């Protein structure tokens, strides 16, 4: 009996840590998808970009680990802003499918550029933390993972503050609710779009920079991240940052428990099964009020 409690606690610990980074990933996408209505296939690539930048800074340039994560995030934000400004803004179409195809093209280009520059072999980002796991009773967790959890939680809190208590946040929320009315009220929608894409991509980048040292960095790491992000967005409801936060933890815990108690092979299927169930039973997601069925 004690064994199963140990297992249970270990799963919770693993799930919470993953969940915190998933939440960041999910919030980023729900912003972009919700406010700009873009099926953003490059989201996973920004996740990978964050990881690669962290790798380059720490392993190749010898930058301080913590500073590198900060810098990697900044690069993610910058690159997102540039992408929006140079490509998305100038598209003559707002057709969701056409924009999606552009994101697909960029996804292919970004991923293969990463392979071109750093090669297909997975890279390890050395962290300053010790490899000896900390043991709390039956549960063991590495110091690095504790750092990731702490950082992610701080960022989540900071982000919620941004969305709910700043003018930028207000502008974003109003653009999400009704773009035209927001414009009438003086919101510069173009700037908000750039800020949204930059911020959303930056969140993906920081998730990548944080998880990079935990796992490994390779060119295709973004693909699974993209799909999970989409799952989180659906679960939480499009445009709901609270929903995405809770959704991130939920998906991570579902994966952990599903993999631990039901079947590990289907680990990544659980997120999809959850989506299917949610969409059939409560299509607007668990947290939005907005009517989604057409």
């Amino acid at each position, binding site marked *: 009996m004690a064994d199963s409690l140990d297992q249970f606690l270990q799963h919770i610990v693993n799930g919470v840590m993953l969940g915190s980074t998933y939440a960041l990933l999910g919030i980023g996408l729900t912003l972009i*998808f919700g406010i700009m*209505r873009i*099926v953003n296939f490059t989201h996973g690539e920004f996740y990978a970009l964050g990881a690669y930048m962290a790798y380059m800074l720490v392993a190749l340039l010898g930058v301080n680990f913590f500073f590198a994560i900060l810098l990697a995030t900044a690069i993610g934000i910058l690159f997102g802003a540039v992408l929006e400004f140079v*490509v998305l803004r*100038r*598209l*003559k*179409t707002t*057709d*969701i*499918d*056409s924009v*999606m*195809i*552009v994101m*697909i*093209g*960029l*996804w*292919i*280009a*970004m*991923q*293969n*550029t990463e*392979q*071109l520059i750093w090669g297909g072999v997975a890279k390890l980002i050395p962290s300053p933390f010790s490899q000896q796991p900390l043991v709390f009773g039956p549960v063991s967790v590495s110091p690095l993972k504790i750092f990731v959890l702490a950082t992610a939680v701080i960022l989540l809190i900071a982000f919620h503050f941004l969305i709910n208590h700043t003018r930028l946040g207000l502008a974003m929320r109003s653009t999400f609710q009704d773009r035209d009315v927001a414009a009438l009220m003086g919101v510069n929608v173009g700037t908000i779009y750039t800020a949204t894409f930059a911020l959303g991509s930056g969140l993906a980048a920081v998730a990548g920079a944080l998880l990079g040292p935990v796992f490994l960095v390779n060119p295709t790491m973004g*693909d699974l991240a993209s*799909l999970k992000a*989409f*799952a989180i*967005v*659906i679960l939480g409801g*499009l445009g709901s940052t609270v929903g995405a936060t809770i959704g991130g933890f939920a998906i991570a815990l579902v994966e952990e428990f599903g993999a631990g108690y039901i*079947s590990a*092979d*289907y680990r*990544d*299927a659980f997120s*999809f*099964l959850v*989506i*299917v169930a949610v*969409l*059939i039973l409560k*299509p*607007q*997601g668990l947290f939005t009020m907005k009517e*989604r*069925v*057409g």
Partner: protein
Amino acid sequence: MIQRIFGFLVFLGFATLPFWMNDPYILGLLILTGIFIVAAISLNLLLGYTGQLSLGHVAFFGIGAYTSALLSRGFDVDLGFGVMLDVAPKPVWLSFLAGIVMAALFGWIVGRLAFRVRGAYFVILTVSFAQVMRLIALNWVDLTEGPMAINNIPPFTLWLPGLGVTTLTSKAQNYWLILGVAVISFVLVAHIVNSRVGRALIALRENEGLARSVGIPVTHYLVLSTIVAAAIAGASGGLYTHYVRIVDPDVFMFIYTVTMIIMVVTGGKGTLTGPIIGGLIFGLMPEVLRDYARPEVQWIIYGIAIVLIIFFLPNGIVPALGKIWQRISVWGSRFVPERLRLRLS
């Protein structure tokens, strides 16, 4: 009129291609590209004409492929509770048709479930469906062989007039088969699109609320178009199975859906010839690029080409060509006497 003559000439060109371009390599490329063009034509019905952004289309392709593979090789599976299902190998044409039916059935299921939601939610639901199918194919090893793959799949065997029952072994034979299926799909979709059903689909694509308000049974038509699209995709899956002759869960890869979408959107969604033009360009481009750049750069060029096409031709290639054609004919019409001009238009 001129468009019809032109179209017929192009068709003639394709039909006689094995005679004047007898390079088996190019035929091979056209065969594989053609299989995906058939799938793109079906996606166009759903995406272009009905306006539904389905990102799980590869699921129907894969279902058609697996069904045809399993039936043509025969299989036995333990259904639990001591029940064994033992199926002897069936002739290829029958397995192929079964694949179409199976895909259509799943089209119906997905249609009924997925069309409770719209927009982003529909997109994610369709992606999830394809992923779940892939995971089932991967893990239900008893039935599908999972990652060990189903191989030694028999090639197509058809009854041809004058030759009796023949196995299609040559490139040219396979090419004509694919061309035949492509033409049938094209004609089928064209027929639907130009009929009352098609007009209803377009109406609901443009403004669903309005269409509903004039009495169009929206869900009914959505499910119908999904079934037809799924069936055609299942057919292309069957063609793939008996040409490549090995099927594994990779047949559900998301990249295949991506390929089909690229073909449809760059060609021009909502146009009949869009998927064909887009298909030829983006199906053949990667092969052409093999000689010109290292592998990663080939992909980068491919990705950037997609972005550029949408950038400059937001509606796709076919509508842009249509505009060019219009300008040419307006310019050219000054040389044609009045009566003839009216005849030709």
